[in-house]
């Protein structure tokens, strides 16, 4: 990636760079060139319509370059700051505005696919088809894909991309020794006197973008689910995280939230969620607890959330639990007593039922969601949820990768299937077919 800025349009273009610094050099421009300049004004319009794409150093979403390129249907990246210095005349580049709010200029000609689906003919299946979403910048545009909400919204992208700092480092900022880390944090949180508030605001904004994009449909947000090694990689994080041999089954998920080692960090997450629900009015936001090993942990986490004003049932707050540990299935009746719904995390669940480490090349091939043991567990938990009138969904790629697996879930009466956005349409079509087949079978 050579240069980044705010993207305009949703297209991708490839062509040679033409750096033009002033209108007197407009005649150097050839149709299809990638126009790279400081900024544009109406004098530039004659070549803007011939450009393959436009890259400017300056400007925001509403500047001249953005407005004109949008009208012309030419992809543009504005506000790159150093585009005219970093891109060289004649250099072949790919300009991508297809990746959300940020636009990227890549070196060389990159391959890409275009998929077309006629949405007008698409009916809604009975099984709710939801989306997995982690990047708030994509939320608005993805909301146009026919969907029933977000089955898995993640915090992790927001934290690594917008916040970058370990929550406890922000809590301890005032007590922190001066040095590189403190300096880095000061830079990122410039404008914030209250450092923990930076975490709360940024997390709330990221989550709010997703909740708003799909409002009033359900958006189920999974609370933070980094492993300790991932937390340690956040700025100032190493100090707070133990080094674990096996982070996958270590200090993660629910076990962190009530533990004094992370409690103060979890408090910030709760404040952010309260802000989104109570201040912004986005009550379609539901919260989900990941990696909840025991029923007692579920209770302790809920008690912790109540301390911060997030009480199940108040202001329509629904609490979900990830179903990703065998204990969640085995004690599903008891988990159902304290949660409104379950979301099957098929990756972790398969891994823990089969005892397979997916990172081990030797045993990885054994990993398969369609293993009878896994299917038996999933079938059971769907059954229990239905009898207890709890919602039950799945968030993972298995239903989209394996049509027979989707059929299995639909047959068992799963409420919702949450997928990566790029597979939502394809899988919706497949589910419609399965449901139709089931209806025919029932009639016969």
């Amino acid at each position, binding site marked *: 990636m050579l240069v980044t800025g*705010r*993207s*305009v*349009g*949703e297209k991708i273009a490839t062509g040679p760079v033409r750096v033009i610094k002033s209108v007197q050099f407009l005649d150097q421009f050839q149709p299809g060139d990638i126009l790279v300049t400081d*900024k*544009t*004004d*109406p*004098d530039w319009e004659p070549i803007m319509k011939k450009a393959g794409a436009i890259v*400017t150093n*300056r*400007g*925001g*979403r*509403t*500047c*001249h*370059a*953005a407005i004109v390129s*949008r*009208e012309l*249907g030419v992809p543009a990246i*504005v*506000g790159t*700051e150093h585009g005219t210095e970093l891109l060289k005349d004649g250099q072949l580049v790919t300009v991508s505005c297809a990746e959300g*709010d940020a636009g990227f200029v890549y070196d060389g000609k990159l391959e890409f696919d275009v998929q077309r689906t006629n949405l007008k003919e698409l009916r809604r299946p009975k099984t709710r088809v939801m989306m997995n979403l982690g990047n*708030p910048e994509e939320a*608005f*545009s993805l*909301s*146009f894909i026919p969907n029933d909400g977000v089955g898995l919204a993640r915090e992790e992208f927001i934290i690594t991309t917008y916040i970058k700092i370990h929550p406890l480092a922000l809590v301890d900022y005032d007590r922190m020794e001066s040095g590189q880390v403190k300096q880095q944090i000061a830079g990122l949180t*410039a*404008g914030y006197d209250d450092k923990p508030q930076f975490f709360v*605001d940024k997390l709330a*904004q990221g989550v*709010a*973008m997703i909740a*708003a*994009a799909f*409002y*009033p449909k359900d958006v189920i947000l999974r609370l933070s689910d980094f492993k300790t090694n991932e937390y340690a990689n956040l700025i100032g994080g190493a100090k707070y995280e133990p080094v674990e041999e096996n982070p996958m089954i270590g200090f993660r998920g629910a076990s962190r939230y009530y533990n004094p080692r992370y409690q103060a960090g979890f408090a910030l997450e709760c404040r952010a969620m309260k802000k989104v629900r109570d*201040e*912004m*009015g*986005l009550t379609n936001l539901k919260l989900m607890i990941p990696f909840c090993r025991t029923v007692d942990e579920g209770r302790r986490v809920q008690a912790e959330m109540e301390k911060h004003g997030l009480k199940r049932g108040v202001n329509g707050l629904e609490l979900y639990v990830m179903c990703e540990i065998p204990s969640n299935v085995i004690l599903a009746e008891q988990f159902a007593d304290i949660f409104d719904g379950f979301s099957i995390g098929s990756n972790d669940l398969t891994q823990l039922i089969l005892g397979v480490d997916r990172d081990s090349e030797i045993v990885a091939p054994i990993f398969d969601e369609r293993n009878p043991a896994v299917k038996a567990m999933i079938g059971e938990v769907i059954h229990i949820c239905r009898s207890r009138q709890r919602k039950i969904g799945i968030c993972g790629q298995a239903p989209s990768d394996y049509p027979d697996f989707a059929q299995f879930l639909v047959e068992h009466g799963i409420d919702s299937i949450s997928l990566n956005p790029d597979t939502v349409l394809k899988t919706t079509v497949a589910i419609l077919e399965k449901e139709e087949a089931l209806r025919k079978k029932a009639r016969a």
Partner: protein
Amino acid sequence: MIGTLEVPAPDRKAAVAPRFVKWFADICIEDIPLVGGKNASLGEMYRELTRQGVKIPNGFAITAEAYRHFLREAKLDAKIRELLGGLDTTDIDNLRQRGSQVRQAILAADLPRDLEQEIISAYDTFRGTHLHPVDVAVRSSATAEDLPDASFAGQQETYLNVQGHLALLDTCKRCFASLFTDRAISYRVDKGFDHFKIALSIGVQRMVRADLGASGVMFTIDTETGFRDAVLINAAYGLGENVVQGTVNPDEYYVFKPTLKAGFKPILQKIVGTKEFKLVYDIGGGKMVKNVPVAPGDRTRFAISDDDILQLARWACLIEDHYSAKKGSRPRWTWNGRRTAAPENSSSSRRDPRLCNRASSSTSLKPTNSRGAALCSSPVAVLARRSRPVRCA
């Protein structure tokens, strides 16, 4: 293509004194042929939305009829027709030469006395009991009789911080001349528009000291995705031209309309822009305004407060609701207006924003249900607010 200069039919409104000036309070959106899209839109908003709390500084339009009167009285029509007669727009030198001659002719001509008097008298209304000349923004607003919806946005000039009778009259002439910039002439020839069926109205509006605060642009939908439930606001320090022209990288804010209308405070996103420069009033310089660097500490801060962001978004909703109710399912108006927040009293520390100065209008010819077109049919506003009290120098 050169057409004939039509003698305009007497306008029933023009029969009422004053003939050439219309205050915002007397203008509505149907007046586009007379005052151009920007002024019509500003008048419409001033008239209809002020009572709902949207603050728009007052102003008046010098009508298209005034322009035609000027051309007639100064015998410019024949002269311009002659100059543009043998025009070859593909020959850049020819275009430059003839364009320059037309503009020189307009600038050299005298405005008719009756027109001058009306402009001065309207301007003096702003002044009230103030001793110092009032600062106004002067913007041209082109209009075509047979193409009231055509977009001429960005083709004409804007003058900020214009003070005093002579400066105002001179600026008006420069606005009229701007209808004949090389770019505008060539645009009309390319589009097949008749030079003489297009007229120019001028908007004169009280300025507010956004140069001491911030300003920007807002859209009632997300421009990138066509997502309809969010207001997008761009803001930077100083006068709004920098944001409109893309001279600076502004702050970006999103506000969610459905829960905002329900009384919540849904600022979905706040991204700080680098805001390198701000456009401020120049004192004693040759130009009326100048760009100055922004202090590093201010650049990392947001240009406007959360309360201001929410206030602006509420106004955006009011404006959008007003236009969609009025226009029904027809393509909606695009307008951009500068919104300046300026207290009437320069020593006050009031911080309320207000809408002002510029409103261009154009309807989208594309269907509004496609995502790409949605942005063309959405209201746009330029906004500004004042961040701190002005010192009385």
